[in-house]
């Protein structure tokens, strides 16, 4: 970020009044719609005391939901990294017909409501869906089990890595890589030694965003999970389940773990952002 013309010093008086009013509005608005809802989660989670909070967190089903959510993230994020890099390499370094179309398709999940994604998967893998009979015959369980949850999560997180890495690769051009090529480097060497160091922070940035999304996805997962307690309930679903169990404090306790993850993501993101800026 560059220090833009700082009006504080130069501006005439009425400008400064406007400035204070606008800053005040910004703080007020943000406090009202962002800060308070965030703080409220912890306040409510702890409203019955720390002991009750701890008991809610280590309730077996909630603990399992935390575990399942981590497993889903641990599978989807690495896949996202590999595919995101592959797509970025393909689109940034080669020309071929349909390149723009491919890019549009990769970005598609970003505009489709996750709940619609869930419906799509149900129509595809459900017993009455397109592939249902085939999968049933082969005794492969996709929906209402880990594979289904992982697949929809892959869908909703698909654009993140490509989105961050691609513009950078395009901006940097391929001169360095071509130089390496003439020096006799193999493809993987070029990628590892030339490309990766240039884009690592953007890559990490994309991965962090994908993690946040993978951990928090609700709509798409809710359609394909079957909400088996202690089995196919991810943490966001567990929140809804506890809410409907009329265990409101438990719901907020589960929510607070997700909020904590979100805050960590934000901190990591802020740290990385500076570095991405430097890469550019």
């Amino acid at each position: 970020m560059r220090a833009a013309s700082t009006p504080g010093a130069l501006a005439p008086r009425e400008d400064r009044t406007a400035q204070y009013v606008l800053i005040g509005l910004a703080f007020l608005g943000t406090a009202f719609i962002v800060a308070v809802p965030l703080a409220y989660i912890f306040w409510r989670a702890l409203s019955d005391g720390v002991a009750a909070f701890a008991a809610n967190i280590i309730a077996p089903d909630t603990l399992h939901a935390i575990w399942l959510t981590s497993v889903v993230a641990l599978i989807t994020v690495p896949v996202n990294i590999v595919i995101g890099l592959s797509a970025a390499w393909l689109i940034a370094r080669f020309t071929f017909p349909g390149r723009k179309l491919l890019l549009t398709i990769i970005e598609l999940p970003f505009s489709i409501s996750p709940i619609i994604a869930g419906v799509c998967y149900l129509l595809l893998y459900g017993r009455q869906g397109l592939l249902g009979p085939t999968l049933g015959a082969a005794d492969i369980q996709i929906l209402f089990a880990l594979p289904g949850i992982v697949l929809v999560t892959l869908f909703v997180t698909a654009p993140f890595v490509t989105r961050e890495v691609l513009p950078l690769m395009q901006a940097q051009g391929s001169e360095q890589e071509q130089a390496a090529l003439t020096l006799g480097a193999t493809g993987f060497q070029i990628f590892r030694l030339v490309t990766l160091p240039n884009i690592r922070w953007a890559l990490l940035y994309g991965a962090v965003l994908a993690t946040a999304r993978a951990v928090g996805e609700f709509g798409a997962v809710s359609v394909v999970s079957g909400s088996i307690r202690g089995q196919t309930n991810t943490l966001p679903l567990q929140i809804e389940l506890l809410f409907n169990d009329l265990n409101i404090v438990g719901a907020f306790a589960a929510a607070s773990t997700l909020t904590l993850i979100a805050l960590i993501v934000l901190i990591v993101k802020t740290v990385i952002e500076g570095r991405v800026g430097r890469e550019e």
Partner: protein
Amino acid sequence: MTFRLTTALAVILGLASPAVAQDKILNVSYDVARELFAEINPVFAEKWQADTGRTVTIDQSHGGSSKQARAILEGLPADVVTFNQVTDIDVLAEGGLLEEDWREAFPNDASPFYSLPAFLVREGNPKGIEDWDDLAAEGVQVIFPNPKTSGNARYTYLAAYAYALDQNGGDQEAAQEFVKKIFANVPVFDTGGRAATATFAERNIGDVLITFEAETGGIAAQYADAKFERVAPSLSVLAEFPVAVVTENAEKNGSAEVSKAYLDYLYTPEAQRILAKHYYRVNDETVAAEVAADFPEVKLVTVEDVFGGWEQAQEQHFAEGGILDSVFVNQ
């Protein structure tokens, strides 16, 4: 902590490979049975271990029972179902997941306990709700779930309808008008019984919640502070809670034996006592006599008596374009 994580890991791996050393069943159930099976399952597991030396894990999934039936048709690997509506199991039979004559597999038409639609009102019953008539009055907000997705709500529909028939000497049109009035008083149709309870108890919407008597009892006890009051209508419909082994899944999972034992267990006095504790009415005579004081007398009609059985009720009332559709104007 480590132990828990290891168990969790085992469960995850169990998802991938069906062949696990211990017995394992998935009980897919209706929405408001959450606390009930949370209590029954460990007791059964203990008994199963004592009887056979094997351990059993029972997983639960809860939701509106028609929604749950759909999920099973879509591949949710239920070993047993404990529903609140015969038609929702019939759908599974039609889908080839279990036998057509599943009702003969367990005593009492495969229905180990029963209940009835009853009312829960706010402290002091400010709107003076005593019977079905009061629900059709103007200015009363009634809460029950979506009859399209919830068996619970279909019983409510049938009970209101049966009451109107009873009052109007069997006049079908008057009954439809009456039910229509009640439906017009419903501000929100949640997909499951528990969501409706949350709407009433947590979100403070509505003057009266109609749900199974068992749920009204449980909620009144849980929300002792709110001082909800239970109201039993003069007439209601006997709500059966049919159970079945989902044969196809159970055979595939090798859980047929434990599944049957699990459902058989629901008929034992021990289980019936737990059921009564959760405000379900039971058929075991000894237990029923013990708890008789907790259950007010209500004139109960059956779906067979008033609606000519489930098949006919389904056709006339619940099928696409049936009477429910014309009453459920909001849809």
